[in-house]
Structure formats: C-alpha cells, structure tokens
C-alpha cells in the first residue's frame, strides 16, 4: 500500500496534472474535429440533398391510415365493415369565402341541404387545418366533372377514403356502437394514453359500444409515406413507404339471426333482451329497443337526425341492456328461494299460509299479494310457479336484508358484470351499509319485506339479470359475460380466442338447485305464470316472470292496467334458460311498460330460445329461416331436434 500511495502522490504533482490537461485538450480537439467533419458532410457534400428537402419543403411525411378492423358475428357475417369511396373535401383555412365556394360547387355537383347542414356542423367542431367532407360517395362521373373544374376551386380536393359502414343498420346498434369524428376531448384522451402519434391522419374513432371498447384492437398501426410534392403541395411521387397495419378483426359471440329475431319480436315496444351461453359467458344476443342507425354518426350526424334521436320519448340512444335500471320484480324469486334453501331458512317441505297479504304482528299495514284472495297453503315449489308474494315477504323478513344481500351479490346482482363493453351500470342491491352510506338512514323492516319480491331499492340491468340467470342455469358458475369471441391479429393472421373467465362458483347444493329449477320448469307449464309462452316446447324450458312497479299503489287502491297512463304501467320481466337440464342459453327480457311478464316478455324469450335450440338444428343455416320463427309445434318439431 505504501508504494501505491507514492504513486498517487506523484500523480498529483503539477506536472502530472498538466499532462492530464493535455490529454483532455486533445480529446476536446478531437471532438471538435468530429463535429466539424459532420457539419462538412451535411453542409457541403450533402448540401444539395438537404437543400431540396428543406427549401421548397419538397418532402412531406404523410401518414397512411390503416384500415379499421371488421366486426363480425359468430358466423362471420359482417356487422361493421369498410368500403372505399371518393369524397369531396374542403380545407376552410385555405378559402376566403366559404359560402361562395359551396355555392359554386353546387352548380357542378349535387349538394343536398343535408350535406350542407352536416358540413356546417363539422366546420363548427373542427380544428383549423382539417380538410372536411362536403360530399361523400362521389360517382366516377362526378369525380370527372369536378376534375375539369378543379382550377376554379383552390382548397377543394377529391380524396379516396375508407368509410365505415354498418350493413345491418339499426340491428345490434347499441352493441356495435359507432365511430365518429375525433373531437378535442378525444385528442386529450389520446395524448394521455400516448397514442397521438398513431392517430395522425385518423379522423374517426369508436365512440360507443364495441367500436369504443375495442378501439385499440380495431384501429391498427398507422403507416407513413415520404412524398415528394410540387410547389402547390400536391404529391408527385412516393419516395418511401411504411405500410400501415390494419386493425384486428373482431368476431363477436353474437348470433346475428338470433339478434334480429329478438329485435323483431319486440315490435314497436321498448325494452331490452340479453341472451347468454351459460357455460362460457358468451353473449348471444344483446338487444336494446328501439335502436338507431349507426351509419348516421359516421360522418357527423346532421342536426335534424340528432334532435330526432335525442328528443324522442322512446329514447333510442339509451342502451337499456347494460345501462337501463329496473326493479327486478318477481324474477328475483328463484334467487330468493335458493337463498332460503341454502341458508336453511326454508326446506322444500316448509309451507306457509297465505291470506293474500303479509303484515307485521300488531300492524295494520298490509303487504299485498298480487292475488287478493291469497294462495292458501304454499310451499316453495308453488311459491315460484304461481309467483306467490306472501311466501317471499315472509322469507325475506326471516332472513333479513344483509343475508339476502350477501347471497344475491354472489350472482353478480348490484354490481357490474365486467362485460367487455364500456359504460355498464352497477345497479343497486340494497343492504344496511348501502342505505347508511347513501341516505344516512337506518334500515326499516318493511324495506326488507318488499325487497323479497324485487321491489324497493332494487335496481338491476337486463344484462345483470341475464348474467345472474346464466349463473343459476349452470348450477352456480358465474362466467364473466363477454361479447368478443375471438380477435384476428392482422399481422400474424392468427385468431386469438377469448377464454371464458370463471368469476366465481356459487356453491349450490344439488338438491336445492334442482328444487328451484323444477319449479321454474313448472312456471312454463299449465298452472304456471308463463304457461302460455311455454306451451308445447319440445325441450324443457325453465323460467320466471316478473312485473316491476313503476308507480306505487296506495293501500286501498287497485291496480287496473287500462286506467294507468302508458308511461306509468308496470315493466314486464322474464328470465329463463333451456334446455333446463343442460342449458345452452339463458335469457333475460324486459319490456318497458309491458304489463305482465307472462304475456309480453315471455313470448319474446320463447321466440329467441326456440330459434337457438330448434331453429339452427332443424333448419340449418340461419338465412333460410326467414323472418318470423313460428312457435315450435308440439310433437313434430320435437322429433326434428333428434334428426340433425
């Protein structure tokens, strides 16, 4: 170590230090030489090259927008696709008198008042440098006409663009959603996500539905092209090109035929239907009626259509299936029955006497059954088949709200189902802590009683009820509902299947489950509340009807449907699954102001289930089936099912 010290002592001498400075100076000069050589290279040898690049701004790098991924139904039928067409576009920033230009253009080409209105709306919302379409889908003749007159219209150009189209129109509109022009709020979100560069040149993005939720898959990767341009900024030829990568195609689990049968079954009524494959969570149909034509939104909706959609009392823009909240009414009873059995508050043998109402001891307030004279002696089976209210009033009262809440929440009620579509509402499954947090009030016993028949604070979406029914149908396996079945990676061409996600397994005892299921089967048979809708099915159909009160009825008043205004009439519910022993479909139907579940909601479900179980197998490809699926006839079609 001594010698080492001496070595460093020497190093610290002024002489050694100065030699180090000399090394440093040499390094500095070498660095300068390197820089100067680079400058010489760029500014003398390569000067001409860079001068041409810069001086006339000859090279522009322009983005090449990728084709948006397609959306297909489970059979591969397109729900959203692209087509190429010419548009006439105006860059307002390059034009002094916009009105005169449009007027001039209208002398050459047809420009409808709707085109003008839409253009005006786009212009108000646009950013400065946008090129905005005034006419879409120009014919070859129109293109030629404009080309001749182009010199008169600086700042107006013809472009070939890809357009989004929704070939099925209003069908499945809430599910597919639509794309719309990118606005300032969208830009902010893209910036935050660090996706701005990939959206150079892109003018649309998904605004709702699958188009929005799977934006990242659908958009693709933007390519780029280095273009040599003339003095007027028009492209002369391409120097280099990086191809864009198209968006990924999505295959949905939706069956378009099933979807359309359901939509037609609603007729002019408002409501929602969700059908789920219970063993995977795949959504087979997702209906919210009325729908709207998503094609209207693609290039900016015009004012008149926007107002019509927005102000209609039918609220066609509301997604009732995943955002509509309704009290579940009697459709909650199978779940309540399971709760009673599982928590040992009831056995299948337990009977109660129903005088037509339930009352707390010493209270005169009556919680009325729908049947004023009462059901008499009722066990669990009859309580479900005839939808006896009093049975469930008593059961709820004995269980208490928190036990009810804890059991039912296992089926996903009162919570988001986790479906792969944005905007779903969680609904409300009330409990003591919930009420405390929401209203700062204590829970009352009477509120438990009405919760037993799905009234009171309970608010559920049709999607939630369908998911809960699917969970019940599969004996307690709660698969997360999902709409996208597989994603085709456009780079590799591989299909990536979306795997079912088992959220939880509600441990149901076999005998409890069987008892409830058998009761639900009898709901669909003579004597049950949906006997009419269940008549003559060659398969076993388990279901439950429901009626959700819209307005309260006073103690001594009687609800008479004809006397109540349409908007105040009860909502009709139906939940069910089939074939009951090994279900392939679970469905929830809600008809707004539809009155009785058995008479309006159940028949819709019947058509859907018939098609799913009989139609496909009996009739082969869906297209051959035609519009109206006749209810399956007893006997005959039952044999058909064995023939495929």
């Amino acid at each position, binding site marked *: *170590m001594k010698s*080492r*010290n001496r*070595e*460093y*002592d020497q*190093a*610290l001498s002024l002489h*050694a*230090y*100065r030699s*180090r*400075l000399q090394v*440093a*100076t040499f390094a*500095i*000069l070498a*660095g*300068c030489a*390197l*820089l*100067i050589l*680079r*400058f*010489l290279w*760029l*500014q*003398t040898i*390569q*000067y001409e*090259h*860079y*001068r041409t*690049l*810069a*001086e006339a*701004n000859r090279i522009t*790098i322009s*983005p090449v927008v990728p084709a948006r991924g397609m959306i297909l139904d489970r059979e591969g039928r397109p729900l959203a696709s692209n087509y190429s067409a010419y548009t006439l576009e105006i860059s307002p920033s390059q034009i002094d008198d916009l009105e005169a230009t449009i007027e001039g253009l209208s002398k050459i080409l047809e420009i409808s008042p709707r085109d003008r209105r839409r253009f005006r709306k786009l212009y108000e919302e646009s950013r400065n440098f946008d090129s905005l379409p005034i006419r879409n889908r120009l014919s070859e003749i129109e293109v030629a006409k404009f080309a001749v007159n182009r010199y008169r219209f600086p700042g107006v150009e013809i472009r070939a663009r890809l357009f989004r189209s929704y070939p099925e129109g209003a069908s499945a509109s809430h599910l597919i959603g639509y794309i719309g022009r990118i606005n300032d709020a969208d830009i902010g979100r893209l910036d935050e996500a660090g996706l701005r*560069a990939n959206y*150079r040149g892109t003018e649309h993005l998904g605004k709702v539905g699958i188009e929005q939720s799977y934006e990242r898959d659908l958009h693709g990767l*933007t390519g*780029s092209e*280095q273009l040599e341009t003339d003095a007027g900024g028009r492209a002369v030829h391409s120097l*280099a090109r*990086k191809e864009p990568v198209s968006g990924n195609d999505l295959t949905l689990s939706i069956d378009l035929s099933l979807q359309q049968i359901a939509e037609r079954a609603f007729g002019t009524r408002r409501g929602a239907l969700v059908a789920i494959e219970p063993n995977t969570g795949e959504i087979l149909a997702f209906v919210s009626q009325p729908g709207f034509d998503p094609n209207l939104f693609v290039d900016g909706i015009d004012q008149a259509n926007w107002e019509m959609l927005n102000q209609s009392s039918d609220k066609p823009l509301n997604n009732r299936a995943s955002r509509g909240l309704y009290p579940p009414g009697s459709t909650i009873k199978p779940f309540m029955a399971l709760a009673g059995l599982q928590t040992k508050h009831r056995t299948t043998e337990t009977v109660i006497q129903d005088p037509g109402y339930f009352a707390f001891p010493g209270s005169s307030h009556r919680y009325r059954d729908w049947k004023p004279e009462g059901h008499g002696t009722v066990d669990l089976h009859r309580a479900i088949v005839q939808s006896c209210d009093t049975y469930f009033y008593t059961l709820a009262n004995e269980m208490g709200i928190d036990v009810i809440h804890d059991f039912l929440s296992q089926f996903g009620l009162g919570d988001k189902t986790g479906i792969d579509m944005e905007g779903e509402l969680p609904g409300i499954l009330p409990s003591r802590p919930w009420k405390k947090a929401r209203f700062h009030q204590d829970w009352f016993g009477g509120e438990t009683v009405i919760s037993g028949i799905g009234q009171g604070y309970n608010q559920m979406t049709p999607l939630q009820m369908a998911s809960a029914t699917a969970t019940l149908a599969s004996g307690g396996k709660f698969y997360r509902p999902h709409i996208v079945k597989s994603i085709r990676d456009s780079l590799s061409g591989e299909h990536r299947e979306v795997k079912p996600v088992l959220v939880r397994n509600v441990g149901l005892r076999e005998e409890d489950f069987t008892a409830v299921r058998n009761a639900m089967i009898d709901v669909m048979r003579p004597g049950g509340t949906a006997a009419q809708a269940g008549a003559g099915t060659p398969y076993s159909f388990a279901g439950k009807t429901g009626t959700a009160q819209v307005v309260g009825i006073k103690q001594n008043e009687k609800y008479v449907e004809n006397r109540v205004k349409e908007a105040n009439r009860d909502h009709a519910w139906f939940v069910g699954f089939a074939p009951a022993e090994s279900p392939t479909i679970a469905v929830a139907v809600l008809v707004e102001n539809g009155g009785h579940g058995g008479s309006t909601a159940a028949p819709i479900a019947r058509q859907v289930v018939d098609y799913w179980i009989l139609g496909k197998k009996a009739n082969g490809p869906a297209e051959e089936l035609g519009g109206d699926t006749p209810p399956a006839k007893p006997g005959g079609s039952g044999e058909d099912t064995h023939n495929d």
Partner: protein
Amino acid sequence: MIRRWIARIIAPLDAPLLGLILSLMLLGLAVLFSASGKDLMTVIGQARSMLVALLGMCILAHLPPQYLMRLAAPAYAFGLVMLIGVALFGEVSHGARRWLHLGPVRIQPSEFMKLALPLALAAWFQYREESLSFKDFLIALLLFIVPVGLIAKQPDLGTALLIASSGCFALFLAGLSWRVIVLAATAGAAALPVAWTFLHDYQRQRILTLINPASDPLGAGYHIIQSTISVGSGGIFGKGWLSGTQAHLDFLPEPKTDFIFAVFCEEFGLLGELILLGLLVSLVIRGLRIAGHSSSVFNRIAAGSICLTLFTYTFVNMGMVAGILPVVGVPLPFISYGGTALITLMLGQGILMSISHHRTIVKR
C-alpha cells in the same frame, strides 16, 4: 473614489473569459430572436436572466476559493437531501419528477448538483491530498454515483449522464491511474447490454431512431430528420439571420431550447458554426489554462471539471442536432433559452474567475 470602487469590482473578472462570455450571450440573444419567431418578450426575458447570471458570476468571482471549498460539502449534502426530496415528494411534469416545491420556490435540484458535485469532489481530493489512496477514489465514486442514480431515476437521463461525466472528469484530473481507467472503460463497454435493459422504452426508441430515423418518421425519428434537414440546408454561408425556413415553418421541434443550434446552423451555415464552436472552445481552453496555473488540488480539479463539463454540453448538444448522438435534453451553453441552466453555467464561470484571480494570493 467611485472609480476605485468599480476597479475593485472588476478586478477579479478575467478579461478573456468575460469577453468570450459576453460575445456568446449577444450571439445567443440574436439567435433566440430568430428562433422564437421574432418574439421580443422572449429575448428580453432571456436578457434579464443573463443579467442575473452575470451578477451571480461576479459574486462567486469575489469569493476566495478556500471559502468555496468550505461551502462544497454542505452544498453537496443539501443537494443530495433535495434530490431525495424530489424522489419522494417531487412534482411530476411531462412524466418526470424533477421539480421540488419549497414554499413559493420551485427548484430543480439536479441543476444545483451540476455545480455542487464537482466542488465536493475537488474538496474531497484536497482533503485527502496527503494520503491519497485507491480507497479514496472509490469513496469519490460513491459520492457521485448516488446523486447520478437519483437523477437517472427521475427520469432525466441526459442530466444524469452529464453529472456523471463531470464526476469522471474529477476522478481523471485527480490522477486516477490509466490502468484503472482502461479497466473501467472496458467493463463499462461490456455492461452496455445490461444498461440497455434498464432504459425506459422512450429512451431506447431514441437510440434506435438515431441509427435509423426513417423507422419512425412521425414519432421519435421526426426530430432527427427535421434537424438534419435544417443543418444540411444551411450550407456553407447559411440562409441568413431570420430567414431559416425550417425553423419558421414550424418543422423544427423545440427551436428555442434544445434545438436552437439547428436554427443557428440553418441561418448561419458552416462559417457560423465554426465561429460559435471557436468561441466556446476558446472559453474552455482559457478555463483549462486557468486550471493549469492554479495552485491547490481543489482549484485544479474544480476548474478542470467545470471546463470539461462545459465542453461536454457543447458536444452533446451539437452532436444531437447534427444527428450523431441520441436526442437528450441538453441545452447549448449560452445560446439555448432558459434561465436556470444559464445561471448554473455562469456560476461555474464565476468559480473559474475566482480561482484565476486568487491564484497568486493563495499559497499552500
């Protein structure tokens, strides 16, 4: 009386240094006027920062080096505490945590560390002068690895690398044996693939696009493509002041700060660059002369690493604009817009002047 007073103020200011600095500043204001799109307010703001920086330089020039040496350790400790503070409570801006709020004052501790670290290392080697051993170099290494690591974590890789280089300069000037330097350089080269895995995605992207800017012409490659076009199209004589098309047509990113040199190249051409590089290198060489004539270990190491760091800034910024180094946020000394970096820079020059002025007085 007043004349004597002025003479006393001016006395420690090294005339060649001051002359070079003032020329660079005037040049900087002229370029900034063009780069900011003829925005007089920006230029006035920068001029004000320059005056503050000159004042700071004067004050440090008057402080004797021994005094600076005594300040070095506390300043270093303070800087370190602030860096830890930033890591814990710093304000996030543009995805990086660099600023610290102390009451009404918003400070960037990494900037402070640029000066504190070389001073601290110089003081350390002065303190260990009599019995310097290899262990002392290891401790010095530790002294700069910690703040560098904290800054790299912010993440501010550019500043971290610059501060690391100023630390390396200090070790080099303190007489670290060549054997160790060669060994460390070899080990460092071998560790590059490992370092790669620690980089953020955007940092890797910047290095990749340097190799092939066309791979991402809309994103990270855009800066490099546009800046080389600016430089190349400037030619030998340039397009003339206020006539650079690249800068004025908004093709160039960050034309006032990190890429201001591209504006300069476009407008003043190769000749302009030679003059600017000449001024900056003269400043560095003059500083190294002061270092070479200074008397104590502290003075030599502090002065030397300040000068070498100044050159590093110049080289990294010009190299980035010319497209031979990756895009890192390093300003061009005296030219780029921004007060904080300028003040740090000028305080360094003040230290140099102090060392120069007091070399005859301080004898050890």
